[in-house]
């Protein structure tokens, strides 16, 4: 048992070491030449008004550029409500003895 705990500790340290190496390779936060500031965000910022015709850029991204994403977000909401309703309604019916 004690050997197993030691093994777990070693594995956890190894995983933490790998993750810390990956974090150390990240570019500094907020620099303008970071790889995240590529043409995608630039296109969203400069072209949202032209492509979607709305003033709210967040709405342009959520409901126009990434409309598929939002559609499946609503399906996630539907699934959550469905799971709660199915679980709780079935329990109530069993308790009521119908």
């Amino acid at each position: 048992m004690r050997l197993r705990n030691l093994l777990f500790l070693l594995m956890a340290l190894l995983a933490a070491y790998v993750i810390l190496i990956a974090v150390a390779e990240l570019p500094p936060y907020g620099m303008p030449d970071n790889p995240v500031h590529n043409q995608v965000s630039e296109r969203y910022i400069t072209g949202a008004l032209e492509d979607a015709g709305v003033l709210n850029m967040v709405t342009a991204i959520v409901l126009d550029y990434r409309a598929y994403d939002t559609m499946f977000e609503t399906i996630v909401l539907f699934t959550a409500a469905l799971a709660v309703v199915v679980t709780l309604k079935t329990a109530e019916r069993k308790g009521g003895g119908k």
Partner: protein
Amino acid sequence: MRDFILKRVAALILPFICMYGLYVIFHGHVSPGGSFAGGIIVGLSFIAFATIYGLEKGRAKLPETVLNWTESYGTLWYGIMGMVGIVKGAPFLANKLAGVSLGAPGALSSGGLISLIGLGVGIRVASTMVTLFFTMMEEEP
């Protein structure tokens, strides 16, 4: 929670909260906010009503059939709005590519399909919140 003062204050405030939620949904593309936030506010007004006045009166305001309809057909409405693009010969959920007129930026009618899609999402979020709350509240003895 069945206080007289609470009930009167809620009767004064809750209609305006519901109206404000609808305002946030309808103006999601010209002002800060959006359909998700507006749907949460609309759902919150009904949740507060059911908390203060009791579940029976809340159910009377929003019957289960209405909740089932909005719950089931909100995403279908989104899909129908997406099919406009396919009918016009553009990709699914296309807005400008489908040739929908975008209107003047800043006007309430701007954005083509965006406001219609946002209306569906807002109703969807509100009905999900209310359904979850009503279903969990019924479980209490």
